[in-house]
């Protein structure tokens, strides 16, 4: 499969593993995705220091010869992050592809571009896509309403948001949100995207250390089982509906102060939940695609199956078109 994304990133398939916080994107997953012809992605903020990030990049290199990316999330955090150090470390280690999200990446684009790297940035509206293009990004990934993690609170679905962003920029667009299989891949391409970025689907991979109990739970979830929280504190997030997340939402809607909410949603608690499987006191993020995912597969199989499905879909479409 050949699109501007496969050409630019020098990958076989236009399938990208999205950043997964809480330590959910270990080097084994990143390397497996890249080895299968997709683009694996190291999530820099999973590492407490640039030294740990350097180790992770080196460990990934040992496992794959193919390109992989480093994501640096620029969202508000409770700890201070030495962003520039992370970028510099990854560049020193020869990483060529960077992915950011959360706010305008302008201050880091030159750093990466001067070192000959490529810059991809997550956007949630055509306005931000234009800004990203203007400040020099090579690719935008469009995070729609369906997405796990942090979609923008404009709540626009992929079916509308992808073509709107495609129309607003010349650089290639990646669909992030709502895609988990070959049907979604073809739909995203039809809407004008040139690649897809998957989060929840790779959480449900054998390489992801998400607790087995949670993986079993995810298999049973349907399209109705996610909800949005943290809108009141400007950090919109799609999470699985649980008694705990309902409680958080009620607290936020009652106008609770940030200081009351923050301790309940700390990253440490989330990480702990992912590793122990106890969902009683932390939020678990997931995209609406959780309703489409019913199995845990090796990352390689996720990709090969998507491509095979996409081919079947294309054959069906060819018949519809031709008749």
């Amino acid at each position, binding site marked *: *499969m050949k699109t501007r994304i496969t050409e630019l990133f020098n990958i076989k398939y236009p399938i990208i593993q999205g950043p997964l916080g809480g330590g959910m994107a270990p080097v084994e997953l990143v390397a497996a995705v890249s080895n299968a012809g997709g683009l694996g992605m190291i999530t820099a903020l999973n590492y407490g220091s640039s030294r740990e990030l350097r180790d992770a990049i080196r460990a990934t290199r040992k496992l794959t010869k193919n390109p992989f990316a480093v994501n640096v999330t620029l969202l508000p955090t409770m700890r201070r992050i030495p962003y520039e150090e992370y970028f510099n470390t990854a560049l020193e280690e020869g990483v060529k592809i960077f992915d950011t999200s959360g706010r305008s990446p302008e201050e880091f684009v030159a750093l990466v571009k001067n070192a000959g790297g490529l810059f991809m940035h997550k956007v949630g509206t055509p306005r931000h896509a234009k800004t990203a293009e203007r400040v020099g990004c090579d690719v935008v990934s469009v995070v729609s309403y369906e997405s796990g993690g942090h979609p923008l609170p404009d709540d*626009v679905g992929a079916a*509308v948001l992808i*073509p709107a962003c495609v129309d607003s920029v010349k650089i290639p667009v990646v669909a992030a949100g709502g895609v988990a299989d070959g049907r979604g891949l073809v739909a995203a391409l*039809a809407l004008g995207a040139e690649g897809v970025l998957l989060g929840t689907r790779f959480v449900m991979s054998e390489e992801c250390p998400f607790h087995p109990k949670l993986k079993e739970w995810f298999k049973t979830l349907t399209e*109705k089982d996610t909800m949005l929280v943290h809108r009141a504190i400007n950090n919109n997030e799609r999470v699985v509906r649980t008694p705990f997340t309902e409680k958080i939402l009620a607290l936020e809607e009652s106008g609770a102060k940030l200081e009351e909410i923050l301790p309940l949603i700390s990253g440490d608690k989330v990480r702990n939940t992912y590793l122990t499987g106890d969902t009683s006191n932390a939020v678990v993020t997931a995209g609406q695609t959780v309703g489409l995912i019913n199995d845990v597969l090796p990352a390689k199989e996720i990709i090969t199956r998507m491509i095979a499905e996409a081919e079947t879909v*294309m054959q069906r*479409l*060819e018949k519809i*078109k031709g008749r």
Partner: protein
Amino acid sequence: MKTRMTELFGIKYPIMLAGMNWLTTPKLVAAVSNAGGLGVLAGAQYNPEGLKKAIAEIRVLTDKPFGVNLTLGVGSGPLAKVVIEEKVPVFNYSLGRPPEIEPLIKAVHAYGGKVIGTIALVKHAQRSAQLGADALIITGYEAASHSGNVGAIVLVPQVTEAVKVPCIAAGGYADGKGLAAALALGAEGVSMGTRLAATKEAEVADTIKQVWVKANEEDTIIDPAFDGINCRVWKNKAAEDILKKKGFPLFDAISAGLMMKKTLKMSWGQLFTTVRKIRGQEAGIGGGKRSLASVMRFAIGGRLFRKATTEGDPEHGILMMGQAAGRIHDIPTVQEVIERSVAEAQQALARMNKMAAE
């Protein structure tokens, strides 16, 4: 273009008009059918005599298949009777409970008509298919008016996997890219609402058509405040005012209720039965229960929607509008919309074939 949708209804293109209250008129419905799509008239905007007349008008304007949509529950019984008496080729229902739905499907099948159920959840899709619906409309979150909370890109593949009947994707579709995407997701065609209302043939004020042309995809809000169930509308001042209103507008509710009684020529007894019936319904195609306040909002909503559509007042009225409005930049004819969409979809497929081959 041939899909299970075109074969089922005997139409040329896999595109249908969404049955929108106060926007679908016989002229628009016939224009869509004449252009090779499936025109659908919203029945709930008429009383039984009015509906009968409208169906006759459609038949004067086209000899192609068309449909009538009804929201089951509020005074829909006599309207459904008209649909059956008139042997309307396609009957499209939304909401409703199995004891209401099943006999209707049987009656339509008895004269050789086809039935489409509108759903926004996998569970409801399975139920409608079991009850005998011939096709389903899957309403994604992007849609104008009532929907659930699941985006089309996720909901469409889920539903098409769960049922055998052909599915039509609704919500967010305004062009050929969307049509190609819907087909990729497993749908057999699309339903267009706002896009087909923003056409030359639509009998709605130009002020309203211009709202759709100018709006972008972020200019809608979805909230139960407008008519009691989650409803997507244009984010204008009137809509934001309703959202800001703290308490419940009791006076508005009563006066709107009286207007509903008068418009539908109901007796006091009928009005109370209707209100009781609405309370017993599910709160929209996304599920949930209705409160009395939500029933009263339904009456207020009806009045405000008409202010926008029939009176053409975009300032004080509430206008149902899908996120696809952001994809609308012109007011072409219905035929142009349909043929352009089909050509664009074919281009998208050709482009993807090239990607896949290399």
